[in-house]
């Protein structure tokens, strides 16, 4: 799904940042330096980020700027991470969220 990365653009230059390895539901994937978790997943062709806790309908991001909460996922075991604004870091373990999640540090 490499064709999702823009390489040729009339105005913008996109540096090919360092490759960042992470996993999505146990599958190894590659993102780039500068990616958010959601942008890296999208580059890998992943649009479904979780399922609604009640209706079980698939969910993807909507706003991509941290407003709408449609992109919440489990990252390194922590639920309700806004993956559309959270920077991708090496070794992250990213999973689809299927429930409301659990609050941390309680």
């Amino acid at each position, binding site marked *: 799904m490499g*064709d*999702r*990365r*823009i390489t*040729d*653009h*009339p*105005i*913008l230059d*996109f540096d090919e940042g360092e490759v960042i390895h992470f996993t999505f539901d146990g599958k190894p994937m590659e993102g780039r330096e*500068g*990616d*958010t978790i959601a*942008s890296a997943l*999208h*580059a890998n062709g992943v*649009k*479904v*980020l979780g399922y*609604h806790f009640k209706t079980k*309908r*698939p*969910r*993807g*991001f*909507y*706003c*991509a*700027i*941290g*407003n*709408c909460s449609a992109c919440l996922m489990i990252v390194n075991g922590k639920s309700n991470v806004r993956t*559309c*604004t959270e*920077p991708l870091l090496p070794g992250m373990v990213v999973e689809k969220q299927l429930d409301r999640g659990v609050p941390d540090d309680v």
Partner: protein
Amino acid sequence: MMYDIDLVVIGGGPAGLMAANTATEAGAEVLLLERDGHLGGQLVKQTHKFFGSEKQHASVRGIDISTMLGDRLDSFGERATVWKNATAIGFYEDGVITVDHDGIYKKVKPKRVVVATGASEKFLSFPNNDLPGIYGAGAVQTMMNVYGIRPGHRVLMIGAGNIGLIVSYQLMQAGVSVAAIVEGLPQIGGYAVHAGKVRRAGVPILTSHTILRADGKESVERATIARIDRTWNAIPGTEKTIECDVICISVGLTPLAELLWQAGCEMRYIPSLGGSVPLRNNCLETTVKGVYVAGDVTGIEEASAAMVEGHLAGLEAAASLGFKGDRYSEERKDCMEQLAALRSGPTAEKIRTGLACAECL
């Protein structure tokens, strides 16, 4: 620990950056809170050149304006502090603002506040509107212009306002095909110059049309559109199926005003400004003394007006603390004139009407 400071600016977009720059230049000590990891707000994805006059950076691209304003703030050294990854999470009656800064809970008690929190994208009701692949137009712009990712292969754009038109053109610049632009109104809402660009590239703009539904198994595979009559009802027999893997919703924005509600500012629902907005005087001070507003949180306009409002709010907040430069009156007058000019055209009629109801103090 409680941080004491002259002025806190909430939001590091065009309005907040201008407010922080102006107030710091006037002599105030300023703290700017930005939720994101970088400054600029939505300027960071605006690859198009701005309109307006030279003072509003006309013919400069939004991304470059963002850098200019950020660099200027940097140049003030420690008089202007910037907290990135800092979300204002509460605004209390005693004037205390609580902040989640890099996961650490902090409290700030400023003498004055400029709220410049911007706006969020509106949504549209239709069956299956929650399918992955249905994105706000701004979200698609962020994916493409900030992260360099194509949202898909073929896009249906809903809304022919300036954002719908500009993002359609930017999709094509990124190598994505745009199937059509659908607009409910009988006429195109955005500027003719933007509409001309997408039309010349072969994209049909279907006015008096709406989306009836989206379909797809796990994500969007197609959309059904139809012509609508004057009462916005679909005309039977005019349905059309459009194959697409992305549907972009560009039906306007609504102010992100939660902090103002919590602070106790008097609010009024004004549809032409996008939702509930704070009442204020012509210097952008709300009903809560010392709380100023600027940018889209005051009502939806565009970045040029947001920058001038930020300038005015920063100037006024600083002046009320006694930081009044020699050019104060001149600058104030200039801001008011720039705002009047930006809102002078026939397309700004509804903004002028809306503002007349909001600027009433």
